[in-house]
Each structure stands twice: as structure tokens, then as C-alpha cells.
């Protein structure tokens, strides 16, 4: 059996780099996985599936130790043991971290391991996945790729396929997400018939830099930073009297947006994050990246000045519906990480639970997929799909400026529309108009043109394919948000401001049936934690 890793960018460029603050696990003797699980359930506003959350939280401690043994440079406490920092929505300090580059450190150490096992893992770096290969029985047997370096299109056969393509933040503008987060995996699985779940649940991170929307880690608040409005009030006292700045993200983002909307923000539309209360020595060793972000992107010294911030699109709780082994609706196809929805985050993800989700369910997917692969022969597969993909790409390249709009224009309009209408506060009128825009853009995308007709590193044509991915997924996000007529987690409907467990304690699944997006429901798994009123 062999393993191939295919990535449209070099793996160390991946967006897991951007996870700054840390990774949660109940590893301390006085902590318990049940406590971690309860915090996660409550954070999810009871939409998370409790069986899956139990799997994630109970396996978390072992995973941290595994990473530590592989070489992740987790920071220590004064005794030389793994150190922790506080994080939002958590009842104990259980976030393990490497300064504020935790994701980068984990990603780089895992890449070190790939280099170590260079002879066992085939790496296809800078190969773009255009479609999944599905056979006549509906099984996933591989994928069709374009080698970005030379434009060659190849069909990769595989006994099992795991999607780990990350999120969809580029649907929004601005976003904390990298340019590569274009919903590729979600769209390919959705087109192949897999169900998407919880798509309406879009996380706005409470602290993104005003202007360009760069992420300022929740670790800053974990280390003690405060939020202030223009009147100098520490406004979280009103919204979350117990947890203050460390309430869960949906709560803090809504509080900030309310302050801004009601005229208590600064004239530039921000509120302030004040890190100066954290000792300078601690800032340098634990929040180094944020010092650099402040210096390079905002022109401020965060050890002396407050940071102008606002809520910004950050994460999609929804994704391809999977079981706890990462298996999707499509045999042979797995998904793990932000691309997937197990669902462990439900309506709102806790900070430092995303790296954990990725690692736990990535590992489980790998084990399950390997087990299946060992028991079967390499499937035969038709080469027709290669021709389809080649035709599709040639058709994009053949379009001219007289046919329609630029791909980049359509992407910009999509991003602005989503950020305007499908954000922290939503209502039916805004959502309906967003759906209209998305549908119009889907039509316009069919004739959108590009400039580059080359084969070597043609990033332009990839952009056109990514736009298609994003528009399909944007439609499901808006549909889910229209469908859910209540306020829960990250979905706040001003026209339905209350949580309604009686009617809406259920997942919204969206599936493509005969080319039409179709809504279905699935139950939320509740084991030991009954829904309660949620306060912080």
C-alpha cells in the first residue's frame, strides 16, 4: 500500500499555519475530558453531536503527547512540563501552545515527519485537484489533477481518498483566511453527491485587524488583553459578566458588533484590543507574531498602543458531513478538518478546537481508510473524466473579454455581498437578496474570462475553477441561513432572535439532487448534556 499527498500549494504554505493560539486538551491531572466536552457542547450552542465531541475530547490528551514526541516545541511551564494558556469558552486553562505560531509549528513538524518518511509517502506538491473520480456504483476511486508546474492533467487512482482541503473563507471579503481557502474539497464532494451539514454556521472571529482583516490571536485575550469601546468602557462586562473577553467567539463578536452598530465604537468602525496590560516579557515570548503583525501591517507597537479590531470572517463550522471515522456519504471518500463537519463545532467553534478537530479526525480517517484499502484491489477507472476536465479547462481558456466579466470581479462581488448580508447579524430580506446575487454570479461565472492561456503555472485558470467551487458553496451557506429560522451560535437572525430548541435543535443538510440543491434534516446526537440557557 502506498500513500500520496496531493496539494495545490507546497504543504508548509497551508492555512493551518494561521492557527496561532493553540490546541485544546484536558491533559492536566485536575482537568477532565468531560469538562472539555461540556465546554465544547455549550460553545456549539448544543448543535454539536455529543458522541463525536466525546471522541475528540477523550482522544485529545494522547494526541498532544504524540505531537510532543514527534517534536512540536510546545512551550513549558516553570517545571518543564507542558504549559497552558486560557482560551475563550473554556472552564480550565487547557490550551497547549507554541508562542502564537502553534499551527505553524505543528504543520512544520508534521512536514518534518513527511520528509523523514520520504521513501514511503509520495508528495505531489503544486498539483491542483479539479474533480473526484466517481465510478458507476457511486464509489470514489481517485481524483483528476492538473500539475500546476506544466499543465498536465492526470487521473490518480486510489482505493480511498481523504479530503483535507480546509475551509472556504475566500467566499467572504475581508476574511482571515488565506487566498487558497476556496472551498475546493467541499464543492467537489458536494458535486459528487455528498451531503453538506451546518453550512449556515460561519464564525466571525472577534479580533481581526481593522482594514485588512488579519487575525489577532485569541491567545492575546487568553494572556489577559482587554476590549474597550470608544468611551473607554470594558464593554464585555455587560455581555458576559463572568467570562468577559473569554466568552465564546460568537458572543464576543456579537457584543463588538452591537457596540459598533450602536455608535459606541471608534469613528473608524473599530473597538480596541489592549494588549499593553500583558507584561512586556510575556508579550515577546508568547505573542511574538502579533507584535510583528502590529508593526508590519498596522504600524503600531502593541506593547504600547491598543489595536483597532473588529469581528471578521474566520471559520466555517459546517462542511462535508462525516461520521467519527471521517467517512462521507460517498463510499471510499473521507474528509477531515475544516472541510468536514462531524459535527463537533455545531453552531460555534471554541478557539483552539480546530487544530484538534483536524488532527483527531485526520488520524481516524487515515486509520479507517488504510484499513479499507488493505482489504481491496486497486479499482479500475475510466479515463473519460480526464477528457472532461481537459475540455472544461480548454473552454475556460477559450472565453474572451467580450463574453463576460473578469473572474476577479465576480469573486470580489461575492465576497462583499456575503460579508454584508450573511455576517454576524442576518435577516430574511438580506439573505434573500444575497441568494439572488449568488445565483446571478453563478450564471455570470459561466462566461467569465481570464487572460492566461499558458500551461506553466497558469494560476489564472485555477482561479476560474476556484470561483466555481466558491459559488456552489456560497449558495449552500445562504440557503442554510435562510432555512434556519432561529438564532443559535454564529447564526443570529434579527427576525428570529431566540434559540428555538423545539423546532431547530437539528442539523440542516444540503445535497445536490439532479443538479438541484435540496435541504434535508438530521438529528443532533445528545448523550449526557441536555440543552440549557447559554450564558458566559
Amino acid at each position, binding site marked *: 500500500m502506498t500513500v500520496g499527498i496531493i496539494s495545490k500549494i507546497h504543504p508548509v504554505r497551508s492555512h493551518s499555519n494561521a492557527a496561532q493560539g493553540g490546541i485544546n486538551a484536558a491533559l492536566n491531572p485536575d482537568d477532565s475530558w468531560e469538562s472539555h466536552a461540556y465546554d465544547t457542547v455549550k460553545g456549539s450552542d448544543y448543535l454539536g453531536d455529543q458522541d463525536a465531541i466525546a471522541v475528540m475530547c477523550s482522544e485529545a490528551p494522547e494526541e498532544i503527547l504524540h505531537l510532543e514526541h514527534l517534536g512540536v516545541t510546545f512551550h513549558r511551564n516553570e517545571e*518543564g512540563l507542558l504549559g497552558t494558556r486560557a482560551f475563550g469558552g473554556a472552564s480550565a486553562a487547557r490550551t497547549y501552545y507554541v508562542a502564537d505560531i502553534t499551527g505553524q509549528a505543528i504543520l512544520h513538524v508534521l512536514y518534518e515527519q513527511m520528509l523523514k518518511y520520504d521513501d514511503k509517502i509520495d508528495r505531489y506538491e503544486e498539483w491542483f485537484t479539479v474533480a473526484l473520480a466517481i465510478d458507476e456504483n457511486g464509489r470514489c476511486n481517485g481524483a483528476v489533477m492538473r500539475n500546476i508546474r506544466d499543465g498536465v492533467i492526470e487521473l490518480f487512482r486510489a482505493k480511498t481518498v481523504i479530503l483535507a482541503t480546509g475551509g472556504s473563507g475566500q467566499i467572504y471579503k475581508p476574511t482571515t483566511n488565506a487566498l487558497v481557502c476556496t472551498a475546493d474539497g467541499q464543492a467537489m464532494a458536494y458535486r459528487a453527491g455528498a451531503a453538506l451539514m451546518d453550512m449556515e454556521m460561519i464564525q466571525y472571529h472577534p479580533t481581526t485587524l481593522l482594514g485588512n482583516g488579519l487575525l489577532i490571536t485569541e491567545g492575546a485575550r487568553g494572556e489577559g488583553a482587554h476590549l474597550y469601546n470608544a468611551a473607554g468602557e470594558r464593554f464585555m462586562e455587560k455581555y458576559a459578566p463572568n467570562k468577559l473577553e473569554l466568552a465564546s467567539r460568537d458572543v464576543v463578536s456579537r457584543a463588538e458588533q452591537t457596540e459598533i452598530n450602536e455608535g459606541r465604537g471608534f469613528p473608524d468602525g473599530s473597538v480596541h484590543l489592549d494588549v499593553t496590560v500583558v507584561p512586556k516579557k510575556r508579550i515577546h515570548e508568547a505573542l511574538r507574531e502579533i507584535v510583528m503583525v502590529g508593526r*508590519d501591517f498596522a504600524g503600531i507597537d502593541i506593547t504600547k498602543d491598543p489595536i483597532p479590531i473588529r469581528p471578521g470572517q474566520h471559520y466555517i463550522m459546517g462542511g462535508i458531513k462525516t461520521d467519527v471515522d471521517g467517512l462521507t456519504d460517498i463510499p471510499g471518500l473521507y474528509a477531515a478538518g475544516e472541510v468536514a463537519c462531524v459535527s463537533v463545532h455545531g453552531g460555534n467553534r471554541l478557539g483552539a478546537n480546530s487544530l484538534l478537530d483536524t488532527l483527531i479526525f485526520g488520524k481516524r480517517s487515515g486509520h479507517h481508510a488504510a484499513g479499507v484499502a488493505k482489504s481491496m484491489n486497486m479499482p479500475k477507472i475510466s479515463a473519460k473524466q480526464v477528457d472532461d476536465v481537459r475540455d472544461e479547462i480548454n473552454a475556460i481558456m477559450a472565453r474572451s473579454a467580450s463574453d463576460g466579466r473578469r473572474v476577479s470581479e465576480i469573486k470580489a462581488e461575492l465576497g462583499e455581498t456575503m460579508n454584508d448580508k450573511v455576517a454576524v447579524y442576518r435577516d430574511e430580506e438580506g439573505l434573500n437578496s444575497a441568494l439572488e446575487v449568488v445565483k446571478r454570479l453563478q450564471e455570470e461565472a459561466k462566461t467569465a474570462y481570464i487572460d492566461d492561456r*499558458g500551461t506553466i503555472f497558469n494560476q489564472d485558470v485555477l482561479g476560474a475553477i476556484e470561483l466555481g467551487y466558491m459559488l456552489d458553496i456560497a449558495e449552500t451557506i445562504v440557503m442554510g441561513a435562510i432555512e434556519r429560522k432561529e438564532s443559535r451560535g454564529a447564526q443570529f437572525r434579527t427576525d428570529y432572535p431566540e434559540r428555538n430548541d423545539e423546532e431547530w435543535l437539528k442539523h440542516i443538510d444540503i445535497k445536490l439532487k439532479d443538479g438541484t440543491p435540496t435541504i434535508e434534516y438530521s438529528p443532533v446526537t445528545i448523550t449526557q448534556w441536555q440543552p440549557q440557557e447559554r450564558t458566559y
Partner: protein
Amino acid sequence: MPNYVLNIRRFSPESGEPAHWEKFEVEMEGHRPVLDAILHARNTEDGSIGIRCSCQAAICGSCGVRINGNPALACNTLLRDAVATAKDGATIDIEPMGNMPVIKDLIVDMDAVHWKKVQRVVPWLIPAGEPPEREYVVPHEAMVDVTQTMACIHCGVCVSDCLSMEVDPEFVGPAAHAKAYRFVGDPRDAATETRLRDLAEDPHGLYDCTHCFKCVEVCPKGVSPMNQIMRLRRRATGDFKIKDANNGYRHEKAFVSIIEKWGTLHEAKLLPDSYGEGIFGKLNPEAQKQLIASAPTAVRGVLSGKVPPLKVIHHHKLPDQKKIKDIYKKIHGRDDRIELNLYIVGEDADALAAESAPAEAAATAADGGES
């Protein structure tokens, strides 16, 4: 809104045309990054402009380019700063990084150079035996220390303008050496001596760095690759007495003992002391070849006046020998080497304030000796 002129180095291998410059005008606020301007040109004028980019936050390491001849990330270089270094005061030149083959426009082949060198340093943790039941117990400071090299985003900016690599393409280079320190500085790694010996004995390794500071100056993440190379050297020589292929160990020892004895650098003694044990001492056989190869340097030194003939014979001792002895005594009396690390001591200004005065004086003395 101000207007910026980008002058982008274009190259498409398919076109059959040679590389050339192409100008794009972009209207944009000066606090926006150069990458935004490049993407604006790509989105509105020419979608074929090739540049790798992703996070736009200086964390993914994709968008290393040369801006006005200096290597940098396009995403964290602001337009107003870029125009300030423009050769004609107005046009921002953007070209691909150096020392690596160009694939298209601003995209270079990092696999052929950078990643090959990273693989060269055995870039994974090699612990002794089976892992413990819980975590490895290691000092807090050690993990904070290696975080500086973990912070490397492999953007290639230091590789682009590494002088040693330009002369010796086989040089392991700044980023890969920083990666090596990430393991040498990690108390969990059990292969420290092997790693150091490997890099010291490689003629393209540790002692192939010419100490030019370029990588320290251009690194967008404060990794200070050259400083990591110097720390590797100190570990190799100080802790393991490793005699390297390039004679760096003896060269350094010669510096230290000459300054200790004379107070200033006795240029005429440096070369012979580096290769043997003084002019009249026994010549180290391994070093003979290099000494002979260095003969022109010695002759040039005399001819250029850097080492006047009289000084070859007579070198003044600094008058206050006690002060020098005190500096050496203080440094030798320390249990640990004091290492500069941004994560531990903060910015340069903080670092200077944190350093005690005698340590500073010692640093100055050593630096002076090398100039």
C-alpha cells in the same frame, strides 16, 4: 489616492521570449502592501502575472520576491516603504528571488535549492530511545529558544541573497542551518554531536558562511539565520571541540587568544595562528593546503597597507591589559553562554539594555578584531 508604478520582471518559458520588465500603474493607499498592488494589477489588467501567494499575513512564506533589488515578502512590504527605496524614487522594481531558478515571472524553483538543503540537515527530531509515557521534561527557556527557528516560514528570502551561496551553490545556506539549530537547540534531540560534526565537517556547511549579516537583515520573521549558524559553531567548538574542514575552529581560537594577549588584532599573527600554533609552532598538516592557498591574501594584506611590514614584526599591546583580562575572566566565569534571542530578550533596543556593560565591551572587542 497615490499612484504607484510597479516594474515587474516577466518571464514565460513558453513564449520563447527572453525575460523583460513590464510596468503597471496602480492607484492605492501607501499603507497597503506591495502584494496587494501586484494582485490588483493581476485582477484588473493581466491575469497572467505569476506570483505565489496565499496568507497575505507573512506566515505562509509564499511571496518572497526582490523589491528594488532587496529580497522581501511582498505581503508585508508596504508600498510607501517600497517607493522610498526605489532606484529612481518612483518606480518599484519587483523581480524573482535570486540563487534559485525562475519558473515563471516571480515564481522560483524552491525545491531545486531550498528544500533540497533542508532535507540535507536531517530535518526531524531524533530522540534517544522510546518516548516517555508523558511529555519530555525540558526547560521552559529551551522551548522558547527554539521557537525562534521554528518561526522560519521557509520563504527563501535569506536564500535569495546569500553571498556564500552565490559563490558556492553547494553551501547549505542560512535557512537550512537555522532548521538545523532547531534540533541542536532542542534538548529532546539526541543527535546533537552527530548533527554538529556533520555540518562542521562538510566544506559547504557551518564554516562556509562568511558572516555578512545579509540574512539577518532581510529575514521577515526575525529568525536571524546567521546568528543560528554562529550558535551552531559555538556549540561545535565550545561543547564538542569539533575540528571542521574549513579550519574555522582554529581560526576562531586564534582570534580569541590573540585578542587576549594583545588587546587588539595582530593581523600578521592571525593567519599562521589559525593554521598552526604560531609562526614558529608546528603546522597542522590538514591546514597546510589552506595556508598555501591563503598566501595571496597575506601578500595582498601587506601590499594594500592593511598589514604594514613593520607591524608583522612589532605589534603594540593595549596599555591597560588588566581591563582585557577582566573581560575574559568575566566571560569565562559564566556558567552559560549568553545567547541573543528575540523571543527571550525582545527587540534590539531591549536587548542592548538587558546586556550588561562588560558583555557589550567584550562583544565590541571581538567584532573589532574581525573588521
